[in-house]
């Protein structure tokens, strides 16, 4: 992105290095990284090289992309951010799980909220069968047990079509 904005402060920007679980290092301005609560606390404790054992390079790249974009947030580019968010959550379910668990570990509240909502929106109205497949869950009910659970709230399984697609 060409227009990387900086805070109006002049002079030296404080830089931080994030290190992924694959050993790759990313240098970033502190003002961008402090969106992440976990890192913010480490910065306050004087760290400037921050190892992130639970986040791989692929995921960290995505998260940095998110933090950079959201550091540019102003009153006037709300629409742009909205579109960015929309694109950001378009990946596969597995990518989303990877991202959401990293966002959870790093305590990036905005990103957590975005991902949890997008995963929920995507699974809402999916059929039980589709959900099992997407989440790689094996059905541990016996047919009798499943029938019993279904009977507890029969109406919830009726009315309207359920989405059988896997994306």
């Amino acid at each position, binding site marked *: 992105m060409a227009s990387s904005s900086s805070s109006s402060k002049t002079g030296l920007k404080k830089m931080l290095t994030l290190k992924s679980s694959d050993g790759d290092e990313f240098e970033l301005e502190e003002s961008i990284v402090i969106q992440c609560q976990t890192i913010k606390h480490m910065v306050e404790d004087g760290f400037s090289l921050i190892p992130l054992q639970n986040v791989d390079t692929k995921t960290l790249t995505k998260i940095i992309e998110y933090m950079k974009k959201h550091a540019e947030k102003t009153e006037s580019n709300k629409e742009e951010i909205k579109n960015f968010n929309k694109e950001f959550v378009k990946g596969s379910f597995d990518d989303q799980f990877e991202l959401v668990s990293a966002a959870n570990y790093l305590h990036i509240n905005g990103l957590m909220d975005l991902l949890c909502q997008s995963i929920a929106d995507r699974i*809402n109205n999916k059929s039980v069968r589709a959900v099992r497949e997407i989440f790689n869950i094996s059905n541990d009910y016996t047919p009798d047990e499943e029938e019993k659970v279904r009977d*507890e709230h029969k109406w919830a399984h009726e009315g309207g079509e359920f989405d059988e697609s896997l994306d």
Partner: protein
Amino acid sequence: MVQQTNFSDLPEDLVMEIFSRLPVKCLLQFKCVSKNWYVLIENPIFIQKHRHNTNNPTSYFVHHYFLDTMKSGFTLFHHEQNQIVSKSHLYQDVLNTSTHLWEVLGPLNGLFLLYNDQEDVALWNPSTKEFNPLPISQPLNSPSFRLCSYKFGFGIDPSSGDYKVVWMRDYWDIYSEEWYSPTIISVYTLSTNSWRNFKEFNVSSRNMTKSSGNTYLNGFYYWRACQNDKIFAFDMSNDKIVEIQTPKSFIAKQGDLSLFNDFIAMYIYEPIIVGRETCIDIWLMEKEGYWVNKVRTGPFLNIKRSLGYGNNGEIFLEVVTWQLDIFDPCLKKNTVLGHQRNGYSLQAFAYKESLVSLKKGIHL
């Protein structure tokens, strides 16, 4: 080497975070996915989290009485970005009951208490469609006694997390032609599905008024005295009633008791006369017996009556053109909720979907 993250690898609090954004119908269906999902969706901590999720939208629930069928029913209005988007109708027939329960109290955590003057009482969760008629409670059997006054309350015992229904009954003795004293108080506990009866000599249901919305707050259920000179608080942890004074200025005015941002609130106004402007003063009880005039709303012109209050100060107003409006005192804005056709609106509630189960009855 990086291992692929699976949904089952996500920590439970994260799964709860995602699930808490799903509607009740979807979650009830997902109980069938696996035993793990079943346990999670039934987990009281999750149920509470789901209820508190800000993405769980507030809807409006209107209780109507239909003059043609002489039955009551409910209309659910959904609310999205300040637009009333869709509505669905729920008739009492969905409750599968031959007895008609036209009095409605609540909602508390998504649950309503329904009853009538035939001593039928039930709990209802419209989101899960659970409907639970309570066992019959007739503590007095003398043929000369007629039940002539009663009030209900509905809350949670904070020490056990159990739902409780309190029922105060006053009987008229047709032989002696006087009120039977004492008042009979019956307290129902959901976990045991039973009533406990006791006598009360100092407080009578005859001096209490039914509130149009939920007036349960932090372990107490509240009623307004008919004269507005005090309110009554029923302590859900020890089944005792206390009286709390109100300012003298409430007396001789119209008053409704409700909640406002987690305070007990009195909505005080002059009797409504169509064509004359009406202002509603919202008073909050900041501490026991200590009332503060928080905000004056209005003036409203052409309102007929108020049908209820939301938890954040929304006022449901019937406008003379048979229109139902919501007034938001913070935004100072009216939203049209709808027009009644063949029905008469009795009450309106702010309502949030809830997974709270009537089988378990444990709040926390």
